[in-house]
């Protein structure tokens, strides 16, 4: 792999966020100085509670903030050789960034097949046919249901469709926003297995946003913890899994406990590794 021309090439990263700050409606500060890296071909999790700023971080990367009157006010977003900040959402998809939205957001009145066709707007017909085959191979269940309205699929099938739709754009980086939301544990396991299979077979880098830390840490190599718009912890999945605070928080040990309270993490908020 070639080394990127980023100022601090730690290792070859497809994506690096450097101290970004996002405001909504010009005033409301949603994330403050978030920095993170996704290594080429790697899998990284961004974990955090409700309202911590996970989705905002992803929207900053995909450019979908514009749809919500949000704006990256400070910091750099580097994707391969490109500085993303001034690019339109469409351009970022063309460069290889796919954002699977929170809540699946399939095109409900279209069939799964049409969902995949619509998601090939930036690709040729030839690519579309090849990519569709690939998606149906990863998700045979979608193939069985390809001609019924996507709105009638089960939650798990809709999540598969949302991921398949993202794959149709031929991404280099796949960003998933809470794919486990509202799914039964066995389905979460199944979908996460397919995500790591795609990561291995397609050489696709993955940025996985989750509240379900236990499941996420099973498949990623590194994790970041975000709290109130700041990264408060960054470590290997192994270390995070055995961290008592993570265990306590995500296993529901202490109801009132919040990462706000973990002061020492906030002080060393940077990803100093």
């Amino acid at each position, binding site marked *: 792999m070639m080394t990127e021309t980023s100022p601090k090439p730690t290792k070859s990263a497809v994506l690096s966020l450097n101290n970004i700050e996002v405001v909504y409606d010009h005033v409301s500060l949603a994330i403050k100085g978030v920095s993170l890296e996704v290594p080429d071909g790697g899998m990284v999790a961004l974990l955090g509670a409700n309202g911590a700023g996970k989705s905002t971080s992803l929207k900053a990367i*995909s450019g*979908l903030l514009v*749809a919500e*009157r949000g704006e990256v006010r400070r910091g750099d977003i580097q994707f391969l050789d490109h500085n993303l900040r001034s690019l339109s*959402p*469409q351009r970022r*998809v*063309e460069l290889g960034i*796919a*954002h*699977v*939205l929170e809540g699946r*957001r*399939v*095109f*409900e*009145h*279209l069939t799964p097949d*049409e*969902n995949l*066709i*619509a*998601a*090939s*707007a*930036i690709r040729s*017909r030839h690519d579309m046919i090849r990519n569709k085959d690939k998606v149906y191979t990863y998700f045979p269940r979608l193939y069985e249901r390809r001609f019924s*309205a996507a*709105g*009638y699929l*089960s*939650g798990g099938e809709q999540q598969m469709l949302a991921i398949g*739709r*993202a794959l*149709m*754009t031929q991404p280099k980086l796949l960003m998933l926003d809470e794919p486990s939301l509202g799914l039964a544990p066995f389905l979460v396991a199944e979908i996460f297995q397919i995500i790591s299979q795609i990561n291995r077979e397609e050489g696709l880098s993955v940025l996985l946003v989750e509240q379900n830390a236990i499941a996420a840490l099973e498949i990623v190599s590194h994790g970041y913890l975000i709290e109130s718009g700041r990264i408060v912890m960054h470590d290997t999945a192994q270390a995070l899994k055995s961290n008592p605070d993570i265990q306590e928080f995500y296993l529901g040990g202490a109801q009132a406990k919040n990462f706000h309270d973990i002061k020492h993490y906030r002080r060393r908020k940077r990803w100093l590794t």
Partner: protein
Amino acid sequence: MDWALLAETGINGSLIGLMYSLVAMGIVLIYKSSSVPNLAQGSMTMLGAYIVLAYSSRFGAPIWLAIVLATLSMFGIGIAIERIALRRLAGRPIIMILMMTLGLEILLRAGSLTIWGATGRPMPIGISDDPLFLGALLINRAYAAGAAVAIVIFGLFALFFRTRMGVVLRAISDDYTAAWSVGISVERGVALSWAMASVVATVAGVLWASVQGVDQSLAHLLLKGVTVAVLGGMDSLGGALLAGLLLGIVEGIAGSYLDPLLGGASRDLVDAAMLIVTIMLRPHGLFGRHDIERI
């Protein structure tokens, strides 16, 4: 009551209704892609007719060529309207966007008055005034032609929405954020829907003008278009077609019974009643999509 007369009124009413559908389909196209109820659709219809006349009288083009040229011009005008007037309003409250389309409506009507004056002019597209005979029933030729064109246009759109580009437009109308997330150019899709609505407006303008001549009263077709679009469910082209049929029949029959009693206003009263009752009892219209219930 004379059954033959009733049947004749019903059939002619249904043909007129399908011509209303043409106006409604333009409204539906724009509403589907961007959730904007276009209050300028009536004056766009009027503008389409004026542009045909401009090409044929000013530049002496034969009428069919004038229609083709006007259609192309209106395609461009539709794109320009979206680009200049509407795109900058994306994300603003819908009421501001609605007021913008109202502003366009006034602008087009006043502008046409300035340029072309208020005198009505004929639209000679060569449809004879002689009625068609359906057994003993007399059918208006211009209405029959208009209805046939409405059905053909509907068929073309039904085909178009199966193509790749049509599927992309339907995706935009389902969820534009999700459309953005897969690299669809939502702005371009919305512009295309304005262009298509402008083309439909030209066709409607020519057909209606062949019945009632070209003047600013063509813009009043907005009220028919809105009524039909709401009755059909705002986002359904098939709904617009069938609702037009229904409104035309009801209007025709009610008109022939009630006009002697109410002195000519009965059709408008029927429209108003249909519009108000639909909004009160069935806001999704007859065929509008309810959001699909999750299982």
